């Protein structure tokens, strides 16, 4: 199960009506502020981020 924090959370988004890219982003569940983004195979803020082609 995922945590459901009142704060920063990591989500995968899909730009369905635009570039059709999936990407990972951080969103604040209270303010809806977003920050950072990365290709989907790299977890934001994770030290174990995998390098993929």
């Amino acid at each position: 199960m995922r945590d459901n924090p009142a704060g920063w959370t990591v989500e995968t988004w899909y730009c369905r009506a635009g570039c059709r890219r999936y990407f990972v982003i951080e969103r604040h569940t209270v303010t809806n502020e977003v920050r950072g983004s990365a290709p989907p195979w790299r977890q934001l803020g994770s030290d174990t981020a995998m390098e993929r082609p």
Partner: protein
Amino acid sequence: MTNRLPRQPEEIIDRSVILDFTFDGHRYHGYPGDTIASALMASGVRVLSRSYKYHRPRGVMTATYLDPGATVQVGDEPNVRGAHRRLEAGMEVSSQNRWPSLNFDVLSANDLIGRFLTAGFYYKTFIKPRRLWPWYDSVLSRFAAGGKVSPVTPHGYYDKRYAHPDVLVAGGGPAGMSAAIAAADAGAAVMLVEEEYDLGGALRYDPAARFVLADLRREVGSRTGIEVLTNSVVTGRYDENWVAVVQRGLPGIEERLIKARAKTLVVAPGLIERPYVFAGNDLPGVMLSTAVRRLINLWAVKPGTWAVVMTANESGDAAIADLEQAEVQIRHVADARQGAGLTRVGGTRRGVTWAELTDGQRIDCDLVVTATGWTTPTSLLNMAGDRPVYDPTSARFFPSRLPDNVLVTGSVAGDGTTEQLLAHAAATGREAARRADLLRRAWQVQRPWAATPTKADPPPPIDIPPLPRQPHPELFRAATHGMVDFNEDVSSKDIFAAHAEAYDSVELVKRYTTVTMGPNQGKLETVNAVAVLAEARGEPISLVGTTVWRPPYAPITLGALGGRPSGPVRYSPMQPWHEANRAVPLVAGQWIRPDHYGDPQSEVINVRSKVGVIDVTPLGKLDLRGPDVPHLLNLLYVNKWSKLDVGGVRYGVMCAEDGVVMDDGVTGRLGPEHYLMTTTSSGAATVWGWVENWLQTEHPEWQIHVTPVTTSYASMNVAGPLSRLLLHRVVEGIDLSAEAFPYMAVRQGKVAGVECFMWRIGFTGELSYEIHVPAGYGLHVWESLFAAGADLGIGAFGVEAQRIMRLEKGHFIVGQDTDALTQGFSAGLDWLIKLDKDDFAGKPELTWQQSREFVHLVGLQPAEASLVPAEASQIVENGSDIVGRITSSRFSPTLNRSICLAVVAPHLAAPGTRVTVQLPDRTRIEATVMEHHAHFDPEGTRLRG
């Protein structure tokens, strides 16, 4: 009888034009500018409706959009706000909630037994025994509120618009106008939204404010930076100031939803006058001071003859002056600031006839006016996260904490002289423009490529002078009980009763009594409800709290939410031929397809006996290239793909990760690293997103390129025993013999001179070829087939004939025979699902499903061959236990009997089981579960021929 006054200085009616209309069949007239309610009142009509629960007579009370007594039916439009809707010539107005007539209403007996119909009455009374629920339902629906919805009402045109104002001002009163002017002068693009038909708010019916109002209107009108929307209302505020505006009264448009993304929102709705709670407070003739002022000054309507006024503020005092000027006799003024007040009023079903004061005096009258305080409409502030705070000194709520992009001004923010309020509003407007400018600058930093010249330095914050708060006595309820919620017929007694039954929180009281849950959603009644509950609890209002106002602030039609009826529409390149051949259209998502060409049953027979052709262009098509495509297919489909040779085609089903059937289709291998995947017509976009999801998030290392090519190809399926003979005449470069081009193979060549690829598959169960050609040649190839096949009896067939034939063959349709819970094995895919594959989407769930009992999709034939049970008819046993349903049913011209697919419980899935089907009219028929899904040619000899 007329109650129309001589010309009033600020009146908004045009007496040079007379508008005729009817109310409950009687003829009346009014003038342009009248509302339905003002025209009726001017004609001497006092009772406009019956109330929701007790069917009590009701008349004008607020003379605004919120008036709970003036809801009427206009023609076939129910629930029209009669005190807001402008009168039009020829309107057929009727009253609601009365039976058989407004003056004599049988159900008003409810009123007599009203002491039994208290809070929770329905919950307690109609709960046992359960078998009587249908009967309760049929009786209680008689009592339900509202007008009549006509099933044949034509659908009008509804519109949507997107807007990006710098500053959006909600409320076009003096504060809103002043804020808009200041914001526009600071360089902002302003949208000013006003619920009434004219700007001005309370100044419109204040003769003393004539010059101030004229100045403000002129200033607003002279600024190009202000877009004024009247008869429009801000109905919701969402994250980052996405502001929903409902715009009404546009020519040719029923209603428009404006989706505005405002950089800053200025909330300036003014105040809503609050009714006073006392016995008889809902009788026709009991009105608010602002209602009286509107009726006299805007519509020149004399609201009564003998008046009793209870006043606690300047609005009440001004109403007295207006009444005197209109030659209404003031029988008594009870000044609440001196401790005087009303105890109760009484009357007949035609309205109030007497009022009793706190000192025991009884006074004859036909008009009772109250001015006992205000409700702050904090809806938009609630939606911005604010929890307004009650100030007992001023007897109303004030905003507490707002985000930077929301500001308030006007009476919501405080009191003061007109000059003080206008100065506050102007400063607020300048500050709103400044914050919008800051936001624009921030966006420019993020988008340097879209730079517009930025002024050197951001201006400093504007100092907004605080507004004073004027003391006001706390007046909510007299010594008697009366209506709190006029929409829902909830009295103060009901709230006390709810409290006595331990519903002591305001949220519980709301749900138990339905107070504030009617059409006005608490705009008139919330504060009184809270105050009465506070009284019952013996605590101050601030400890009771309020319910939270949520969107929508004002009602919005489903039509406006749905938007334009004309979305994007797709046609195949063969559409001109379909139209010329009188195809009956079928709307299938964005596609318009031929449903049939007049007689689908004959189309079926023609395909089964000769040859037919169907336009299948809407099939979703994805071009897949790269060395890793087999990995992708193995991952997304439940069956195996590793051994598909070049020239081969395979059927596949995709399941979501919960094992639920998502899509199906065939994929063919056109070259060593080149595949074409087809999807269902409706699933094309979903499957594309699904493919991209797996490639981008889980397997970025796979070398696969995906191109959607649905509309790049025109696709047609040639089906029937003569299809090979027909294609011999038009195809070059492909050996069509059964040995060289077998079932489930793909070949490339030319058809009618056009490069194509075709595969042998068969949704219809016949020998058939699906041909894909570049879209631009679609019509040419289609017409060439017809020219070449005329002597063979070629005929076009549509979606309906195809649906009959696929049902004869027992092929399911995703979304028709499956639903959001249908996992793979329930769809009869045991033969296809390969749980021995390494991994694929949905495998864990399907593995789990296989170990359990599950519902089955089965072929079903009714005993009575001519009877086609309606789709979604239920399969029942032991009386009324539901154990399945019909998912597809048609009459098969091939078998000359009705055939079905059905979902049944595990114990009914064995072939030969007899089941009972309940039809929509509750009659029951017998049917038999078949051995195969396919009713016709289960071995598939025809399509392999």
